[in-house]
């Protein structure tokens, strides 16, 4: 899942914090917004459907992360 993560951590730090439960990769360039600094990342659980695959819980438990916003794929505005 892709996330905007408000944090003071660098990508490498986040990667270390998530190991071994999940891996992280850059989805887009990090952005500095009025609301803070955000990493734009893909987070993938190491073992899907396991107890450690609950990414919001996983990310929420890491010190240094202030906000986690899922970024689903955009779709056309016609149902």
């Amino acid at each position, binding site marked *: 899942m892709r996330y905007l993560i408000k944090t003071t951590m660098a990508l490498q730090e986040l990667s270390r914090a998530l190991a071994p439960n999940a891996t992280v990769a850059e989805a*887009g360039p990090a952005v500095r*917004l009025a609301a803070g600094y955000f990493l734009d990342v893909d987070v993938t659980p190491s073992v899907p459907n396991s107890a450690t695959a609950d990414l919001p819980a996983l990310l929420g438990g890491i010190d240094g992360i202030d906000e986690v916003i899922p970024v*689903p794929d955009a*779709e056309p*505005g016609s*149902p």
Partner: protein
Amino acid sequence: MAPMDETSLNFGVDKEATAVLLEFLPAQAAIVPASLAFTEERMQRLQEKCKLTPLRQPPVEAKATVASARSEKLPRRQFLEVESGDRRSLATILKEIEKEFAEEILTALPVPPSIPAIAPAAAAASGPALPTPDFHGYQGYSGPAPHGIGFSAVAHLPGADGQGVTVIDLEGGWVLSHEALAAVQFNLWSGEPSTLSGWKEHGTAVGSLLFAERDGAGISGLAAGARGALASIYSGSPKRQQVAQQIDACRDLLNAGDVLLLEVQRPGPATEFQSSPQQTGYLPTSFWPDVKESIRDCIAKGICVVEVAGNGGVDLDDPELQGAFSQEGSTVTTLGPEDSGSIMVGAGHAPWRGDQARSPLSFSNYGARLDCQGWGEGVICAGYGEIWGSPGGDNSYTGNFYGTSSAAPMIAAAVAVVQSRHIHKFGQPASPLLVRQAFASFGSAQPTQAADDSGDDDRVRHIGPLPDLVAIFNALNLF
């Protein structure tokens, strides 16, 4: 030809087209009583449903008229006008007719002005493509208020066609070779197009509403005088969505007075950000802070951003959204901290819905944040191939483009018209926030009364008025 927003419609009957059964938009559909088995009793029954009038002489080999058909049979080929005897929509009438006369009715062929009825799919399958009919008569959204936005009422004014303004359609993909996009000046100005058919049909529909040439074939783009451009939300290698970054790229390409149309939405927290076929819970992308900030940067540069409100049926004032769409602190000259500054467009019922016209469609997001509405159903435009051509083709057309996606291009085009006229008259564009205020204030109001005292009625959901360019031009001293 009677426009789509009235209760009459011309149609043709062609028994030779029986191999084609098209699912037209009900309001644009027509019956084809091609069977020779129509009895007097059945014909009378049909005529109780609607008024039928011959439009022209039948072919030599079938001189029967509707009147004679009462006592004999329907002719082999007959052109008729269907007219509702009351205010019921054609869709309702045609559904009734289709159901009751299933044995006699074979197919339906709308007759655009000045051409004979021809089966689109049959045409596509046989040799060279036939010339596309002129569907302009069905573009009721361009007509005068209260049914339309009033493009036709200001078109005579110098500059009031988008001239000198650039409009970008930012979304996923297009059928770039489509005839309705031939006038686009900047194909893929930024980004890489999606190859998914859903995106391509969608983009073609939107692009045609904005940019299609006024050449007597297909539809006429509402901002045909503007410089048209397409930009994709996809970029990079591997290719993936970069919505905020692509808005930034568009901002760099555009100038004050130009228009950026944002035609994308995303699943929101109501569905735990998971996609769903019905798009329940979908939100405008300005919910996400990076997109919002990119839009704000456009506004700061003087670029008007028109954004779909989304089809999630969501109240954007819901506290669960934590004020993401709050306009607190915004004025006509300043932006509050949570306000993207975009013109947010909801989907309203089309005029043929009677007293439901301009009330929100059930799927449209709503709330104080919405500025205005456009037609959210039954929009005729390029793409999809439901009434002409075939899906993915270069001459495909639909009569049922819908959603906030069909609503927003109308508004983007209207904004381009306002800005081009403003530049022509005053030498500079109006500020995006002033334009937004005008579009939210001057138009045909949505119905606000609930059908009963319960308050449980879609009509009480705020999406804003259907803008009226005449009223806006008056307000901004553009006449």
